[in-house]
């Protein structure tokens, strides 16, 4: 089961996800990058079956790319991107749903703030300060509840993320050795650290 979570801080958002791609008794790969860059200042962390994960992430990111190309470089705000994503999930829901639970994190230059949106496969959408998808929520939400406050800086946010990963490695049944952590702020979407390089074939 995927672990995907995110934390918003002053001036940005951190997204973290485990890197395993497994089904039944088999691990296909342990360096999967489940966090897709959507635009120069936003990313989508997705949890779910690999097929839907990849299909949905690529669909959204390419549609957002077309938007930019068609509109003279105009970028959608994080709020608009999140609502667009939700709309796509909603439309597909009664036809052939995407079984993906996501966290969309983005930075808006106009406000100087980061924002984090929690979305599930029913197309529910909520703006949150921090969030988790999957079993991780049972372990990590309480840590975030306790430690998160308004006006955190990046280091403090990363510290919360590290604490969550430590808790999962100690108490979660599934062994998830590798996590990839990305930061979205005024400098764009950057990988902070990973357990295993996604670029390795």
């Amino acid at each position, binding site marked *: 089961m995927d672990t995907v979570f995110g934390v918003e801080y002053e001036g940005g958002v951190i997204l973290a996800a485990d890197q395993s791609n497994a089904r039944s008794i088999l691990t296909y790969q342990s360096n999967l990058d489940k966090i897709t860059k959507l635009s120069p200042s936003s990313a989508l962390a997705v949890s779910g079956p690999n097929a839907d994960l990849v299909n949905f992430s690529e669909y959204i990111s390419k549609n957002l790319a077309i938007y930019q190309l068609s*509109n*003279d470089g*105009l970028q*959608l*705000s994080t*709020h*608009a991107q999140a*609502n*667009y994503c939700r*709309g796509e999930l909603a439309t597909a829901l009664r036809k052939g749903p995407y079984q993906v639970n996501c966290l969309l994190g983005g930075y808006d230059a*106009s406000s100087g703030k980061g924002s984090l949106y929690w979305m599930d496969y029913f197309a529910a959408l909520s703006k949150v300060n921090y969030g988790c998808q999957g079993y991780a929520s049972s372990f990590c939400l309480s840590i975030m509840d306790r430690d998160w406050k308004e006006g955190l800086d990046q280091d403090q946010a990363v510290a919360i993320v590290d604490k969550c990963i430590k808790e999962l490695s100690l108490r979660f049944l599934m062994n998830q050795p590798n996590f990839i952590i990305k930061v979205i702020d005024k400098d764009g979407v950057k990988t902070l650290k990973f357990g295993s390089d996604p670029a390795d074939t």
Partner: protein
Amino acid sequence: MARRYDSSTTTFSPEGRLHQVEYAIEAINNAGTCVGILAKDGVVMASEKRVTSGLLAPTKSSEKTYKLCQHAACNVAGLTADANILIDQARLRAGRYEYQYCEQIPIEQLVEHVCNYKQAYTQYGGLRPFGVAFLFAGYDAHHGFQLYQSDPSGNYSGWKATVIGANNQAGKSLLKNEYGSSSEEKEGEMKVEGAAEEIAMPDVNEALRLAVKVLNKTMDATATSPEKMELFVMSLKDGACVHKILNKDETQKVIDEVEAESSAAGDS
């Protein structure tokens, strides 16, 4: 020669022209004049009202200005019946964009959508083009206040000030001379070499006066009165767009101000 190629919209003439589209553009030159002026704190659109009969009962709030969404409006020159179809399209597009993104549609996208719709009638189906030219006024967070003009061909462009409809050439030449030049010109002010003329954007009130001045020039009648024109202003209040059509007294006030200005300047 052109006769052979001008009945079908979807056929080029040997000279590479689409005659039907050009004739549609001509049709608008008979329509009531519309002036659009971009100000630093808003957009002004002024139009000539052609009152055909005193017996007419006014059903709509305006026959020339239409609200497309909270942050966009348009003025029409040409066949009103054609315009209604396109205005429906614009309103739908704006609404659908907001449904999809929970955000207001950027003005240029709205204009481009209407124009793409118009363009289809110059290429497919053998239907005649729309005999409508629009002035679009709108506000978005990306580019602030904007003014666009579109014609039956589906072409559009952004303007600081422009005129469509009857006598638009006369109106445009007046705007060219007077837009951006402040009424108090400083003596011996240096113009920067090579730079475009310093265009000082007017504020909404200046723009209103200039618009009335243009209408005075383009309208046939010698005396202008509030019944013959409609003045529309779009501005921001508390971060939200406000659409306002000036009432009779407010319109008269602007007309009087223009009158005073021209007599003070000893107009030619």
